[in-house]
């Protein structure tokens, strides 16, 4: 638990960090960034909460096994979508051109259409879930162990 100034700034800044991380994940297929970068930005917000409020307070709301479930879910989304195109070939983009995540992106310079890409935005969401849960779990377990609290396996 740090001083009141740090906690107030944490309350103001952390929602903005979370929204920016989710924005980077969602727009991963048309702007710089993607699942890994957005998940890392989100996990830096979680690290800010842990440093500001102390790991013992955070552990009451955020358990490690919940993060572990989220991480495994992200991995399963990614590999499930990869196997979903197996009727043609592994990692085939089977959603592009269908009503879900619609049209084929135009070639050449264009302003960027969010509703394109087929299976790529969903895979970005899977990678983002895996990275944000994994990095948050790393920082949380490091904080708990360094402050002398036992962590179950």
């Amino acid at each position: 638990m740090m001083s009141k100034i740090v906690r107030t700034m944490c309350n103001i800044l952390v929602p903005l960090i979370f929204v920016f991380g989710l924005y980077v994940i969602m727009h991963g297929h048309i702007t710089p960034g993607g699942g890994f970068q957005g998940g890392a930005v989100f996990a830096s917000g979680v690290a800010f909460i842990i440093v500001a409020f102390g790991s013992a307070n955070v552990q009451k709301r955020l358990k490690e096994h919940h993060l572990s479930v989220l991480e495994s879910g992200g991995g399963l989304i990614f590999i499930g979508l990869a196997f979903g195109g197996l009727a043609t070939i592994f990692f085939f983009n089977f959603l592009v051109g269908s009503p879900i995540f619609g049209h084929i992106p135009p070639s050449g310079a264009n302003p960027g259409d969010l509703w394109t890409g087929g299976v790529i935005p969903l895979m970005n969401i899977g990678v983002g879930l895996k990275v944000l849960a994994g990095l948050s779990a790393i920082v949380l377990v490091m904080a708990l162990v360094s402050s002398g609290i036992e962590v179950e396996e």
Partner: protein
Amino acid sequence: MTDSGILHVIIPVLIVTCAVFVARFKDLIYAALALAGLSLLLALEFYLLQAPDVAIAEAAIGAAITIAIFVLAIRSTRRT
């Protein structure tokens, strides 16, 4: 993008300066903060070299998460 020639000289010099500070500081917290500054300058250099993807990853991983883990590890050691 067009006139960033002088920045390609200034920023590497500042990165090397930060690295020297990391090695020279006696207090480990100051060394970790100098490492955070090094990572931020490195992210700026990546952005100037038109690799914004790498710049986002460097700023998030290098400047935030690594330094948080370093500070948490230093906090559990004892000063002599």
